[in-house]
């Protein structure tokens, strides 16, 4: 019991944060290698032939493994690390049921690993982002419930009456996603047929991004921005509006993943305004971030975490402006099914949320390890990532998508749309190599002693 009296974030919590960060970056590098490999395999007929006889390296399986590892391995571990750090500080309490948290840390990795093995050995299921086989799903669901128990349990038992913004998002993300994950792996995977299944699958894939990755990411910014700038968030009212409109509107737009499909037409029509409403949600949040930055923009030059945070936010504006426009039916006719959407998804999951996690890791790492990192390596990581991703991935893939959409409007053979995209796919493969190099520098940097990151005094709460 005397343990509970200790200040928040003592050894146990920091050990957990460190464990999940290390796990996260391991999954990240694995996920990137998978992505780069499959990116190369798409770049032409001879590339598709390369290693083509090896069942375990089949494009179809590696493609699923890639999204599986980055969502459940990299992003989720990053979020777990953040919540284990932020919750004790924002509630003034140590983590509830720390024993479970410690057991759970390797258990989550086991769940992701099992899922990966299932996918690679040809046991993938047919629900996007939930392809890992049911026996791995059970393990993941159990570990996720453990996460919810520890994180949400700490908040509920802390006696905090008015939560800070970050906690709103964490509670929402954890609770919603538990329900969403269970729905996807039971009802969507095994019960709901055809078009009804598609409507529900739309909910799942939409909310896996919108009610798991998004709130967890936004929670990071709401925490780090004031801490790094040493000033409060500009508007409490806007925070409230941003949160509640996200929680309400976001879940309702899922069917926009299946526009013009045999899902009921009323559902598709309804999804247009409900999706478009998100533009106001996002601009509210982003305005709040930028208003907080007022007069402090040059801090970005000095602070690596702040720079990843703000450039991530720039990407957030772009990807979240694209999204609502994709829901316009005439846009949808051309861009749906194409690489345009792939570029958009990577802008969100890599350009926004991964960068926010980078920001968190750069910020927290000196506080856990007691040593700083190399400024030069961090600069290399930032610039390689920015340029390789923006120019060689995002722009190239967006063009590829537009070309595919345009080719499909003609009556030319489908093969022509593939050949047209190949140069851009080759460019994308190169970006994969560069981003993987940048990430390798990032990981090396974590285990190297340097001076960067130490000068900022720890600010709790």
């Amino acid at each position: 019991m005397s343990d509970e009296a200790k200040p928040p974030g003592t050894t146990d919590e920091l050990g957990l944060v460190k464990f999940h960060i290390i796990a996260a970056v391991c999954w990240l590098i694995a996920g990137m290698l998978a992505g780069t490999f499959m990116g190369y395999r798409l770049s032409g007929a001879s590339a598709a032939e390369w290693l083509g006889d090896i069942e375990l390296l089949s494009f179809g399986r590696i493609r699923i493994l890639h999204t599986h590892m980055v969502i459940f391995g990299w992003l989720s571990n990053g979020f777990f690390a953040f919540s284990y750090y932020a919750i004790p500080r924002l509630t003034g309490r140590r983590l509830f049921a720390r024993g479970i948290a410690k057991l759970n840390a390797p258990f989550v990795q086991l769940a992701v690993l099992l899922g990966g093995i299932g996918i690679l050995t040809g046991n993938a299921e047919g629900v996007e982002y939930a392809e890992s086989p049911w026996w791995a799903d059970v393990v993941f669901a159990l570990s996720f419930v453990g996460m919810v128990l520890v994180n949400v349990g700490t908040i509920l038992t802390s006696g905090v009456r008015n939560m800070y913004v970050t906690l709103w998002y964490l509670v929402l993300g954890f609770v919603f996603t538990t329900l969403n994950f269970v729905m996807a792996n039971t009802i969507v995977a095994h019960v709901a047929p055809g078009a009804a299944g598609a409507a529900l699958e739309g909910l799942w894939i939409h909310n896996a991004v919108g009610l798991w990755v998004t709130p967890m990411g936004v929670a990071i910014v709401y925490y780090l921005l004031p801490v790094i700038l040493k000033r409060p968030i500009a508007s409490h009212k806007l925070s409230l509006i941003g949160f509640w409109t996200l929680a309400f509107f976001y879940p309702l737009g899922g069917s926009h993943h299946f526009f013009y499909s045999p899902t009921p037409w009323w559902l598709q029509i309804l999804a247009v305004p409900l999706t478009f409403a998100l533009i106001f949600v996002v601009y509210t949040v982003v305005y709040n971030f930028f208003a907080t930055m007022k007069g402090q923009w040059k801090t970005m030059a000095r602070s690596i975490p702040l720079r990843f945070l703000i450039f991530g936010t720039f990407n957030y504006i772009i990807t979240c402006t694209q999204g609502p426009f994709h829901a316009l039916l005439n846009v949808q006719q051309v861009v749906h099914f194409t690489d345009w959407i792939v570029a958009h998804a990577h802008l969100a999951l890599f350009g926004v949320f991964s960068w926010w996690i980078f920001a968190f890791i750069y910020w927290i790492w000196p506080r856990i390890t007691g040593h700083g990192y190399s400024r030069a390596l961090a600069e290399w990581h930032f610039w390689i990532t920015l340029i390789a991703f923006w120019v060689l991935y995002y722009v190239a893939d967006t063009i590829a998508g537009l070309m595919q959409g345009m080719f499909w409007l003609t009556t030319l053979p489908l093969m022509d749309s593939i050949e047209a995209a190949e140069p851009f796919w080759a460019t994308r493969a190169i970006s994969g190599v560069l981003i993987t190099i940048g990430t390798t520098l990032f990981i090396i940097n974590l285990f190297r002693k340097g001076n960067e990151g130490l000068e900022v005094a720890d600010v709790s709460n």
Partner: protein
Amino acid sequence: MSATKEIAAEKPMFVLLVAGFGFFLLSFIGMGLGPWISLSATMEPPKELADANPYRDDNGDKNAAGRGREVYINEGCWHCHSQFVRPVANEEFRYGPVSQAWESMYDVPNTFGTRRIGPDLAREAGRRSDDWHYAHLWNPRSTVPRSIMPKYTWLFEQQGDAWVPTEKAKDLVAYLQGLGITKKEDVRKLVWPTRVVTAGAPVATEAHGKRGAELFAKHCIGCHGEKGDGLGMAKDFLKPGAADLTTRYLPREEVFRVLFMGSEGSSMPSFSELTEKDLWALSQYVHDLGKQVRKPALATAGNAAAIERGREVYRKNACASCHGESGMVPPAMEGLKPAPKHFRDRLYTADYIKKVMAEGRPGTAMVPFAKIQGQELDDLVAYISSLFNQANYKEE
């Protein structure tokens, strides 16, 4: 950072119950159960589908298509091939009738997909031969030379030198051939043109030949081989095998016809998606592959007595029942898949005709006639060559 006023919207239980549970339930009921109920109420599947799950046999066990569907899901095929035809973006014309909700009423989970790198497969039934699918799964480059699709060699096993499909591959093809089966006839009308009339080939130019060579490398070498000798990568899988284009003289109009119409029942698809200009370029290239056959083939038809004797052989062996009197295939026989050849529109080398007479053409209705030999066989060659319509197809 804490607000001074207490408001419900910031309280843990309120956020948990309203945002976490409440809004999930709202979306689940409104956007999930709602459409499910509305679909069940409005779907009107044809009776034969409503009564029978296409993925189960009479005992309720998974049948070949059902097992194939599992392979399709396990291998992640659905990440590059969508399975619904949208009512927009020209898709009805490219793929076939727009998808309807009842068509996927037995698909758990759905395989609509969200990305389309390769073609949509909702209308795959009857579009291609089983052989084509086997060759393509074994190595997609064997039928689509520029394809970027992965190989699925582990769905095949080696027997001696040949690769043969395993049960898994057979199941998968059974599944693919059932996709959109209720609309198969509509799709046939789109992908197998039954008629082509041209105003005649354009003037042959060097540019046509160059473009034709490019197109041949892009679309044809998988089956017909780089030299056009029919020995492409797919050769072990195809019955009938791809035509050896060096053994026949094909006027450009005839090549155009085959390219445009395809040859249903064989693995030769229709290339009617290519522009007319491209089709003529390709026709010229294919014509050139066999143009040396014309002279010697016509030379075999130089002897009127031999032709008369050959006519008798043709009559005696009832060749006319499929190939028609004077080599003009009767309309009833056009229904054979693949259809017999008109001898009015093509010339073969003597060796090729003799080979087919000895071995037949496995995979078609053409059986061996090994008893026709020697002089009789030479006479038959002379007769068949004489049927060629020289007046219509002048030497180019």
